């Protein structure tokens, strides 16, 4: 099962994708909220790594939809966003995201957090 990366910025998708692929993870990319929802339902990824700023359905709506669907409710979600306001972090965690990281991010920290979430799910 892959890790789904949903981000409107192609550089972020490709960079994080390469980082995860180089660390042994399979990766699938989505450029907007609707594509992320479709991919999450079809692929049932191990983790959804998403930005809150997405075209179409934004990250909060994506979390909401995924958490309210019995099929995708248990998918772990992690937010990676440039939005650093406390209310955004609290909102995402309140909606059911496992973790929230702010861009610019440390690659080592991102990998550590992803590993922790994936280990928790085992």
């Amino acid at each position, binding site marked *: 099962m892959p890790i789904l990366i949903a981000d409107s910025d192609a550089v972020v998708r490709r*960079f994080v994708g390469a980082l995860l692929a*180089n660390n042994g993870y399979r990766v699938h990319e989505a450029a907007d909220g609707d594509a992320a929802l479709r991919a999450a339902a079809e692929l049932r990824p191990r983790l959804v790594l998403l930005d809150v700023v997405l075209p179409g359905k934004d990250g909060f709506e994506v979390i909401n939809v995924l958490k309210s669907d019995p099929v995708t409710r248990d998918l772990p979600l992690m937010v990676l966003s440039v939005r650093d306001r406390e209310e955004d972090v609290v909102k995402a965690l309140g909606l059911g995201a496992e973790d929230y990281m702010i861009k610019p991010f440390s690659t080592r920290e991102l990998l550590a957090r992803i590993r922790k979430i994936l280990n928790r799910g085992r």
Partner: protein
Amino acid sequence: MRAIMIQIVTVVGALLAGLTLAIVINKARREMSEAIDRRRRALLEPAVFEYLGAASSKPLSGYLPKRLSRRDRRLVEEILLAAARIVKGDTRDRITAALEGHGSVQGAIRSLRSRRRFKRADSAEDLGLMRSREAVEPLVALMNDPEPEVRIRAARALGIIRGTTSIRPLVRALADPSRWSAIRVAEILINVGAEAVDELLAAYETLPRHARISALDVLGRIRSLRAIGLMKRCLEDPDPDLRARAAHGLGLIGDSGTAPDLIKALADREWPVRAMAAKALGRIGNPAAIPSLREAMKDRQWWVRANSGEALRGLGQAGREALIDIPFARHMAVSQLEEGRIIEQSVSDLTSADPERRAAAIRFIDRVTASARVDERTRQAAEATQESVRRALGDVLKTPGPGDRGRP
């Protein structure tokens, strides 16, 4: 005549055809160039990203193809700069090392001497992203550029690179209002954060008055405990603007140990200092300030009373109770109780299942009514509906007290 017309039409037609052809060729050339860029980028990007994600000391050149064209070199630089915007930590340091090794830093430094101001400004911005210490000196020199936009981009770049040698010229720039927007430089220093504190403290005494005001503002917004000593000294400064700014800064820092100094400042001869001291006391939340803030509700200046009322409202139950008992500035006190929804909350607590909350609400309402000496009627209202209680208590508190006469 006809021949001339034919000639004109032919020339115009040829010109139009030539122009169309030039546009088509140019567009095709651009599209072809973009297609080559995409293809080369797809080849180079994974290699650059592999380098960035690796832990080895192998330089970027070890991951890239042996021979790089000019196009490839430009693309590698673009990829590195794009990645520089999204990462920090070790990966960020690897980007700087790669850009230095790649010659991008030296190239951008050369471009700082360009005659075109946009090129100088863009190169300064790129050097900020590259974060190379090699760029500090040329950027410091660029702070004297005749173009304001170039100077600001150089300042921003120095703020990003940080380090003592970068910050010192920024602190000096606070002192030069004719060439700099002090607000923009202050913002850059605030973004630098704790690293700017020592330079600001060291330079403070050498700065002119207007720069001292900015420096105090920056130190307050950075919230460094190391600035407390300077701020406390500034509360004694002969300049009231500096005293007011210092009081404001101490509030932003929020160390409750500074309450005695701010309480003293509540008695300052200048009202802006008193107002800032009251606001700061509300921010630091030390209950020892309650009696002095209560006293400050008598102040002749509206701002001092408003800030004191707001501070009391934020100082827990004791502060709120102090607002009830105040026999002066009652409008101010009641507006604080209303803004904080304290009356509504107490009324709502009258029906709470928690006996302690209910008892606390009753005690609060008793004090409100007692202070207005119309307890029986309000108590009756309290037994009726909540809305009527709220209104009744509001009316009670709005009744002018003896100390309110003659005050706005």
